């Protein structure tokens, strides 16, 4: 399998071509530096992203609680996690970095508040 990856480490945005199979990298071409090589390898094997979204607050119609994943989670799990988060609602007060959903979708990643609300 060959994947074209645009490097996001620095503004140069190198187009890196990675070739490999089953989570194994055979060759990397086009990277501008070592950091780019690491990035492209990780992106090829298992791309991860920070998820940020909002959670419903009980008793409030016009305000939501901003939340994030405390660690990057697998890109392919983003929509599963969104579906879980949409089911959740919280009671105030909430403190920044309070855990709102523990171990979301079995990823080992927590969804935490990014704002304190009283």
């Amino acid at each position: 399998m060959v994947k074209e990856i645009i490097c996001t480490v620095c503004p140069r945005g190198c187009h890196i071509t990675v070739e490999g199979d089953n989570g194994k990298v055979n060759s990397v071409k086009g990277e501008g530096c070592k950091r780019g090589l690491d990035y492209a390898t990780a992106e090829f094997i298992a791309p991860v992203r920070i998820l940020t979204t909002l959670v419903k607050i009980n008793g409030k119609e016009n305000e939501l609680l901003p939340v994030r994943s405390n660690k990057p989670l697998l890109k392919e799990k983003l929509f599963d996690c969104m579906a879980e988060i949409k089911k959740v609602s919280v009671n105030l007060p909430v403190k920044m970095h309070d855990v709102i959903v523990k171990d979301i979708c079995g990823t080992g990643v927590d969804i935490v508040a990014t704002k304190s609300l009283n």
Partner: protein
Amino acid sequence: MYNIKCDVAIVGGGPAGLAAAVSAKENGAEKVLIIERDSSLGGILQQCIHPGFGLTRFKEELTGPEYYSRFTAKTDELGVEYLLNSMVLEVDSENKQVICTNSEYGLTTVSAKSIVLAMGCRERTRANIVVPGTRPAGLYTAGSAQRLINRQNIMVGKKVVILGSGDIGMIMARRMTLEGAKVVMVVELMDYLAGLTRNRVQCLDDFGIPLKLAHTITAIEGKERVSGVKIAPVDENKKPIKEKEEFVECDTVLFSVGLIPENELTKKAGIEINRVTNGPTVDQYMQTTAPGIFACGNVVHVNDLVDNVSKESEVAGKYAAEYALGTLTKTVKEVAVQVGRNVRYLCPHKLNIGDKEQKVTLYFRVLFPENNVVLRALDGDKKIAKKKELRVNPGEMCSITVDALKITSNAITVEVVKEA
């Protein structure tokens, strides 16, 4: 009328105002007052729930609320005061007064020793760029949509076309996709991306959202609600190629077509505005042409990263405090700052050099993307600073630092040249 006295008055409680307030306080100003129109501090960062902030400043990836919380924690700790729900109507640069509305106190006059303008910017609109067609519901600037979705719990649409590949537009593409809307495409007039590459990858490519470079919307259709747009590729003069026009169905159009510094108050105060940046002309203290009136953040020039805004605002806050305390270095020489090859504008616009040692960072944007370049600062013909960059592009801010005291001529020039 209600009267308040303070040392440093700051107009705007967004990232620029907050950083300026902290810095003013840390540099000795006793009473620092932020005047904010919203009901809470944080400015636009309150609706920027996405990550990507703080990578340079805090070496970690924060969301908007997390980023400004680090500053509000400081303003609380240092005892910065603030007036919320207060819209400033007038800045009197001569008498150093700010007049604002406040539902609780009535019309309020804040008298200060120095003032920091930190009003931020506003979004360019569909009308600014003259997109023809009808005027139905469903047309939003990306920022308004972001506010509605993230702060007011309101979804603006289901099938979206975004004009402009600026960061806010791309971030909204991801936000709306995650929230269940279909983002049909992002259309960009230029043949390169307006925002950060990272956002293209994580906001568009991740979700398979097509990016149409060198295209534009040629017409908005729909009478009551948007029913679609016509898009067409553009030629080298950015004129749409009519024969290749096609219809794209959607119920919502988001415009992410640039930001304009919000300087109505500045203009009314008689402060000089720079024609390229649309912000006040400032020196390295971030002082405007009105003595004692400072400015920072996106009201001066539109920044790429909030980290840069914070840094620049700390400069403004520091010198606003010094001005209030009467300790600001006297100017011995004025040096013009000039744009050279592939530089669109520079900030600060001039240097008021005193007799003290001072490192000055000049921020600038390039005119066009380029790889493997050298950024240079010239004092007359003499090179006084240089810096290599693998890539520069108009979407990202460049900077170069010079030693103010060492400047001998009356003008320095910053240029971007190809590496020899």
